[in-house]
């Protein structure tokens, strides 16, 4: 009753909400209904609501196959690499920039390291080609000059986890540093002054003041990114790898597996089941991590 009264009183407010609510209903909630495809022997002619119900069979087929271990492992492994490298580099840049202090060079470099974040993955893929292609890529030529055996990047899956990690760090670390910098600038300057008067070196003040004070924030940001571990980055990986199946063993993640299946129009039932599994696992992980975050510090929990 109270809700209804609120509705009558504030109807102009609800009017403003209509476009957003309609959008969410169509593009977020309607696909949730479509999850039933995971339990169907989907047939495009019979459609979503006409295909026959087959229970858990799609999940069974996926888990009996070889691919699920590969794509699940790759998703978790690559995300771990990205999170660790991105966090370390982000913190390093933030501390470095704030330690050196104000200088126009620092301001310019700060802008320059943020720039790659705004360059799209397809363009990064073009740049990757300049570096990695054989025989006239930059890496290949340099290795030849140094009398080393060049790496055939586009046919060697083994080198890609580290390659992807480097590219991801190059693209995102500068932007990631902003948030740590904002925190460091908020720290009490008097602490550093006092430490300096007591004879602390720069390194000591970094390790004894800055890092310990950043720790809660690092912990929270890590928890939140761990919450997203099951989500893969199709934008990055499909741009860089495309349909080069030689590289799938180390680069195919759940998202690209689903994406490629949809592009090829194959196995909608099984692919839908994989997508549902990923959504459920992701949901459980996010909620768990957020629960832990709230235990650590209610301020930082997302909800």
């Amino acid at each position: 009753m109270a809700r209804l009264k609120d509705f009558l009183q504030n109807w102009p407010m609800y009017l403003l909400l209509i476009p957003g609510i309609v959008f969410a209903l169509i593009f977020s909630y309607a696909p949730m209904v479509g999850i039933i495809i995971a339990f169907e022997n989907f047939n495009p002619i019979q459609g979503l609501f006409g295909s026959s119900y087959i229970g858990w069979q799609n999940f069974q087929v996926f888990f009996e196959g070889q691919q699920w271990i590969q794509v699940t492992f790759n998703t978790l492994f690559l995300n771990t690499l990205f999170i660790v490298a991105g966090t370390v580099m982000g913190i390093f840049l933030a501390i470095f920039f704030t330690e050196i202090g104000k200088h126009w060079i620092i301001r310019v470099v700060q802008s320059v390291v943020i720039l790659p974040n705004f360059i799209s993955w397809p363009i990064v893929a073009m740049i990757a080609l300049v570096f990695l292609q054989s025989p006239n890529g930059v890496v290949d030529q340099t290795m030849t000059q140094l009398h080393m055996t060049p790496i055939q990047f586009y046919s060697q899956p083994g080198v890609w986890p580290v390659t992807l990690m480097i590219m991801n760090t190059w693209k995102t670390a500068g932007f990631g540093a902003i948030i740590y910098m904002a925190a460091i600038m908020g720290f009490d300057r008097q602490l550093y002054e006092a430490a300096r008067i007591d004879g602390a070196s720069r390194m000591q003040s970094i390790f004894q003041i800055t890092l310990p004070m950043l720790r809660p924030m690092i912990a929270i940001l890590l928890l939140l990114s761990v919450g997203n571990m099951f989500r893969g980055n199709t934008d990055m990986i499909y741009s860089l790898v495309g349909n080069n199946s030689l590289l799938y063993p180390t680069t195919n993640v759940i998202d690209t597996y689903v994406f490629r299946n949809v592009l090829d129009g194959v196995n909608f039932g099984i692919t839908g089941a994989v997508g549902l599994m990923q959504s459920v696992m992701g949901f459980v992980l996010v909620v768990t991590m957020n629960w832990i975050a709230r235990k650590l510090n209610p301020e930082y929990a997302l909800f």
Partner: protein
Amino acid sequence: MHTVKRRRDVGKMAGLGVAVAIGAVALYPVWLLVANSFAGEGSLMRYGYLLIPHHWSLLAYVSIFDTGTVPEAYLVTVFFTVVGTLLSLIITALTAYPLSTRQMKNRNLIAFFFYFTMLFSGGLVPTYILITEYLHLSNSIWVYIFPSLLNVWNMFVMMNYFRSIPSELYEAARCEGASELRILVRIVLPLSLPALATIGLFYAVGYWGEWQQAALYITNENLWSLQFLILNLIQNISIAEQIAQAGFSNVTSAVAIAPSETVRLATAVVTMGPIVILFPFLQRFFVSGLTVGAIKG
């Protein structure tokens, strides 16, 4: 005292040296792309990708603007980026404003309605079926815009920004009977320019980088987005060769090789262009706009 100061100066110089090195690492890949897009095709073939090419040539750029492929993709991309960003900002502000005021009793319930879409999604397969079978958006330019109109994270950032505006500023207008839409447009939005600029930039970068929609829903080559064209140039050199040949045949030149490699680089450069040019102007906004809702959505 003097030596301490000198030691600190030396330390600062070393620090600045490292900073320049970091900047160089960040910029070097982008520079290689830009510089070699202006290289002569022959020089590129013979010497590889150089920091400063031996021979300069505009032939790649002449070629891509001589044939329709790149300009068409450019028009398509500019259209959905401009229209999409405007529509997204409107729908984001309309949603964020009611949730930012304390008037509505149900606002937490509605906020959760939006928040839940960030936690759980139906996944790609149901979305694909929805868009192709029910909304019939395949091969429509609107497929770039509609599915990404409202980003819930951006909406919460804007909501937080609206909350930081003192409510006294619009309570008076409300007492005088101004409509909510009028308060939003006349009072709240003009006070929220940093947030609008930041979120507008995020939306624009998102739309500009769009290629998955093209891959999934567009088969008509005239509706390809720039980024999807680039992915196709990477995967299929023959498209670049066609562009290079067409442009090449219009130019009487002593150069003997059609610029198919440089055409690919030049397309990437013109695709990157607008963001790199806009970036220095917008970044002063987004550093301040970003920190508002940085951790807590």
